């Protein structure tokens, strides 16, 4: 599904060059639930942006569903994003002057779906996430958890292959965080690949695979079977505190 081969990425910071990703090799299969961890500055968000075609990479190759993603026109990238990827952000990124239903329906607008049809679909997805009574509410009238559920509904409406979530629980309290993770899990169970960036161990522990980044390189990959080990380690880490 996703195949990264020796990805390099650096940013120009005035005269100096900041080398963020120093050769990432990563393979993610269809239907996996992956979390990317790492301290700040380890390049986890950059990696997510490259995966989501929001940013270009300098070196290496990136294949998404068998297609090489490189040097695409903005227009093509926009279409591919719309079809393949759904985004969930830490700060929700809902459009403030649109109500919940309109926000959810927006990706379909860029697919050219008629207004009536996309509003019906948006209501369907809001219903799935238990937000039907909130359809007419504006983002500033909703709680963080509700906003994030609206954002998830928006990510799902275009029936993407991958959901990319950048710190989806970063702005939420523990209970709501777990609710959101529960939703992401359910999404994953219907066969959608879910990749989240997080720095919270308990959140990462709910996924099937953890990719740990350190200084722009993959430090370790913890797989399914090893997760219980990770959980154990993690809880041990917490105990002295």
């Amino acid at each position: 599904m996703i195949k990264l081969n020796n990805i390099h990425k650096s940013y120009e910071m005035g005269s100096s060059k900041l080398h963020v990703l120093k050769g990432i090799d990563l393979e993610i299969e269809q239907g996996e639930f992956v979390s990317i961890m790492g301290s700040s500055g380890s390049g986890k968000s950059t990696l997510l942006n490259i995966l989501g075609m929001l940013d270009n990479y300098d070196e290496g190759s990136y294949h998404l569903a068998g297609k090489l993603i490189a040097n695409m026109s903005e227009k093509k990238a926009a279409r591919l994003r719309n079809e393949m990827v759904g985004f969930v952000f830490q700060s929700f990124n809902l459009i403030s002057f649109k109500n919940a239903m309109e926000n959810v329906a927006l990706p379909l607008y860029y697919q050219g779906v008629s207004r009536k049809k996309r509003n019906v679909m948006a209501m369907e997805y809001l219903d799935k996430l238990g937000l039907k009574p909130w359809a007419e509410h504006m983002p500033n009238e909703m709680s963080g958890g509700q906003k994030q559920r609206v954002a998830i509904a928006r990510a799902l409406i275009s029936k993407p292959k991958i959901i990319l979530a950048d710190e989806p629980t970063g702005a939420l309290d523990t209970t709501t965080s777990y609710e959101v993770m529960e939703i992401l899990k359910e999404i994953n169970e219907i066969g959608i690949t879910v990749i989240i960036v997080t720095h919270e161990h308990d959140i990462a522990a709910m996924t099937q695979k953890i990719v740990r980044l350190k200084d722009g390189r993959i430090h370790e990959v913890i797989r399914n079977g090893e997760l219980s080990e990770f959980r154990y380690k993690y809880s041990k880490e917490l105990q002295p505190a």
Partner: protein
Amino acid sequence: MFDIDKWQEIFATIKKNKMRTFLTGFSVAWGIFMLMILLGSGNGLSNGVASNFMNDAVNAMWIWTGETTIPHQGLKTGRPVQFHNDDYDLIKSLSGVETASGRYYMGNTRYSYGKESGEYTTVTCHPELNTVENMELLEGRFINSVDIVETRKVVVIGKDIKEALFKDIPALGEYVNINKVPFKVVGVCIEPGSTRNRNAYMPVSTAQKIFSGGNRLHNFAVTINGQTLEESQQIEERIRSTFARKLRFDEKDESALGMYNKLENYIQTMRIFQAIKIFIWIIGIGTLIAGIVGVSNIMLIVVKERTKEIGIRKAIGASPASVIGLILLESILITTIAGYIGLVLGTGLMEGINYMMVQSAGEAAQQGETVFLNPTVDFNVAVAATLLLIVAGAIAGYIPAKRAASIKPIVALRDE
């Protein structure tokens, strides 16, 4: 493609930012409003002045005599120069002269009818005078060539004379005593552009015969057929040099022979108005540009403010073209509506002024001097200005829109 969604999104942003939209619109509306007022006033002034010129034939020229001030051919200065009937024949025969009328003024002639009497100026003239001075005949006719040939005792009196002597009695066909000689009234006239109509006109031949004027003439009123300033000046020169030779004075002697060339004046005045018009256009366009720069500026800020929103849109699949369309349409919409409002207000104001002037002036509009007439803007100019504004609005919106489209979603979303 008419896309309700696109428009709904534009209206949503406009509604959310009423103040910003108002300021943008205001700068544009003000620009076009001022342009309309400037152009309208310019037109009004130039129409007014042109109509003043039209009181007399535009190509009129007046020639009069005085005393010499430069010694010439052994003759001393201070010698009076006098026109005679043969000079009239001469000027008529000069090339470039279309029509000519001689005039002999008799000041303070006594007019009486019944018990009423008064002193008025008598202008003795040829029928051609009417071509030059465009007199408006309220009743009857002007002096004609038969009157001249047969030295008929007829007179055309001004409206004021008619009112003073005849009151409500019809004057036409009545006999009025002029210095105790009865003359038949054949017409009543007014002079456009003058509030006093106290002149009476009689055939020059009759006057010379009856009032012992001999064959003397005071001045000539002629029309010339010069089209350009140069042509009319040539004709002027020709007349001057011809009379200089015949009446023996120096050609440069301005006081021996005075001339007033209306065409020359008209052309010069119109040139000034042309310059004023150009100036007005420059100011108007400057105002417009200021408005457009305002729009452009505000749209740049809009793009800055909406960076995050644009980032979100791009993340969920908006193409650069759709982002450009969104910003551009908003800019065009604001400039078009605001421009239209400015246009309506500007032309409305000028039409209102015009209407009020017509109302208050009424009959007097034909009489007296006006400096302001029909201060309206050509419809085509108004439409062209609006179109220009819409195009400019599109350009003003395009630069920020292009910038918006090139925003990288990550940059936009990293803003948090």
